[in-house]
Each structure stands twice: as structure tokens, then as C-alpha cells.
């Protein structure tokens, strides 16, 4: 679908002005390349594309909506500063979510545990058929159980189970030895299974 895109930004251009240029199917690679050249509007498009995924990674790590939004925003700012390290031939989503996991890890390790989101800011859920109610309750239990784990265990689970990284990639993403990361992952699974049995 064609959509208007902002004009070039530079010395002789008004940053806030939008010129009627239409680009069809601007792909993520082009956006990443333009963002790497300092194009803020292209970076905005990347944020638009990946904000839900980054937010959810942060939400699984923190269990708190406001904290997750703040962490997602911080992750995007950090990504913008290091956008030159993004390989344009690879998708930006996993890279952004990895940054989000590290941001959450840093934030969680330097402050008190946050309360689990009570969803008070969301509209009241509509009554669901019993199977869906059970599924929702199960999801709540998993999120609760996840939040009982130390932050670095959560990070290991997030990177392995949601980002599907290998042990070596996890070690690289967390900048830790692979043996430590594996140990965290295995302990995290064990603790999570025990916690889920308690909650069930």
C-alpha cells in the first residue's frame, strides 16, 4: 500500500514538513539503512513495526505494563544510538527485542521488584466461555510464576523460548559465558515448573 513518507531531513529541509512523496512497499531493510543514516522518520517506521513485540518482551520480563512501556522506549532509544551495529540483511525485530531484554535486566537488577500488573488500566474483560477463562487463568499463573524468578533467569527463558536463540547466541546477547547462561536456563525451567505446580 502506498503511503506518504516524510521528506529528506537535512540542513535545507524542514524536519516537520511532509512532502507528497509516495513510496510503495518500503521494506524493513530500506528503513534500517535510512535509520542508520540518521533518518528519524525511518526509525519511527521501525518503531511502529516492532513496538508490540518489544513491548511484549519487556512485559514478560517485568510483568508491569507501565514499566514495560518505559523499558520499550528506553530500548528503542538505545537501539537508535547503536543502529549502525544492526546488520540490514537480518530482521530488526529480534535485535530490538534482545536490546529490550537487556534493558529490562538492567532495570530489574537495580530496583525493587514491581507489582504484577493488575490490568486496572485496561477495559474490563468481557465474560468468556469456560475454556477461554481457563486459558486466561493459566496465562496469569505463568506470568505470576515468571515474576518469581530472578531477573537473569527470566532473561534466559525469554531469549530461549520466545526469541529462540541458541546457547551461544544467548551468551552473546547477555554478554556472559555460555556455561552461566545454560545454568541459568536450566535452573529457570526447574524453578518455573515447581512454581507452576504450586499455583495449579
Amino acid at each position, binding site marked *: 500500500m502506498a503511503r506518504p513518507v516524510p521528506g529528506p531531513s537535512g540542513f535545507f529541509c524542514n524536519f516537520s514538513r511532509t512532502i507528497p512523496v509516495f513510496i510503495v512497499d518500503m521494506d524493513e531493510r530500506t528503513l534500517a539503512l535510512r535509520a542508520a543514516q540518521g533518518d528519524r522518520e525511518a526509525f519511527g517506521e521501525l518503531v511502529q513495526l516492532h513496538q508490540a513485540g518489544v513491548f511484549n518482551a519487556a512485559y514478560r520480563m517485568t510483568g508491569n505494563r507501565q514499566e514495560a512501556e518505559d523499558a520499550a522506549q528506553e530500548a528503542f*532509544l538505545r537501539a537508535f544510538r547503536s543502529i549502525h551495529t544492526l546488520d540490514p540483511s537480518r530482521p530488526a525485530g529480534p535485535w530490538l527485542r534482545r536490546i529490550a531484554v537487556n534493558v529490562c535486566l538492567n532495570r530489574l537488577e537495580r530496583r525493587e521488584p514491581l507489582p504484577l500488573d493488575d490490568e486496572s488500566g485496561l477495559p474490563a474483560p468481557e465474560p468468556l466461555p469456560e475454556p477461554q477463562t481457563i486459558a486466561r487463568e493459566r496465562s496469569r499463573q505463568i506470568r505470576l510464576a515468571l515474576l518469581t524468578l530472578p531477573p537473569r533467569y527470566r532473561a534466559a527463558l525469554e531469549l530461549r523460548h520466545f526469541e529462540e536463540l541458541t*546457547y551461544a547466541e544467548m551468551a552473546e546477547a547477555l554478554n556472559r559465558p555460555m556455561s552461566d547462561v545454560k545454568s541459568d536456563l536450566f535452573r529457570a525451567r526447574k524453578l518455573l515448573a515447581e512454581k507452576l505446580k504450586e499455583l495449579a
Partner: protein
Amino acid sequence: MNHLTDSQRNEYLDNALAPPARAAADAHLSACDSCRRALADLESLTSSLAALPDEPLTRNLVPSVLAALPRPRLALGWKLALAAQAGTGIGVILSVLADWQVRFEPQEWLAQAVTTLAAIKIPSLPASLFTVHHSPFTIHSSAIQASTANLVFFALSALLLWGVGNAVLLRRRNGASS
């Protein structure tokens, strides 16, 4: 019979065992109910995590992210282009001044302006251009004659810088809009 260790079960689940170790684990699992149950528990945990639904994002993060981005700094190409354009302007002004000096008797205000310019240290400009003798308001005729060569030099330099500057500007502008 040695049961699979916790580490082996996890690595089996993650497809991280080397082929011989995986074959050995498969052989053991086919004969050991206890290890099969332990592995099934791990697989069940994986399924539970995979079934965790995504939460909807209730606000668009784009405006706040864009507002918080650091101010754009002028790229090196732009700086070079601007320097070239500034050089062009200075070159044109100097050429015009020198040309006037050659053709007309220097007026007092003009001599003063040139004297002021001479006070600014510009390393790349020949000092002879601004050499002032006798009084601050009179430019010596030899300096005026010597500046004819400088006039050509400035004019050509200005033309070159103008061309380079515009080429860089056009290239960056086209690159940004394509």
C-alpha cells in the same frame, strides 16, 4: 542404568546434544519411563510458555520515542558541503573587492573594510593581498597589482568549491529522498 542428567534432558529438549550423545539419549529414553516423564514435563513447560498470549499495546510508542531521540547532528558530508559553500562566498567577496581595488580608486570605507578583513587571520589567504602601507586607509598599488593573480586564484577556487559543495548537497538530498 544411568539416568539422563538434568543438563542432558535440557540439552536434549533444546536440540543441543551432539549426534552421538543424542543417539545415546534416544536409546535410554526408549527404555526408561522415569526419564521420559521428566522430559515430557520439560516439553509441557515449553508448550505452556509458547501458549502465553501477547498483551495488546494500549498506546503508540512512536511519538514519545521520536520526541526523546537526540537532536540530529550535522553529518560530515553536510559539514564539508557547508564549508565549501562558505568558502565560495568568501572567495566571491574577496574577488569583488580585489576587482574594485584594481579598477577604482579605493574609497575610505572600502579600505577600512579590507583592513578589517586583514585583521582576521585566514591562514590559506596570501598575506600580500591585505598588505597595507602608508596609512590604514590606503592600499599600496603594488599590493593591488599582485592581487590580480590572487583574483584568478580566488575565482577558480570559488568555482571549484561551489561545484563540490553543490555536488555533495545534491547527492545527499537525492540519497535521502530515494
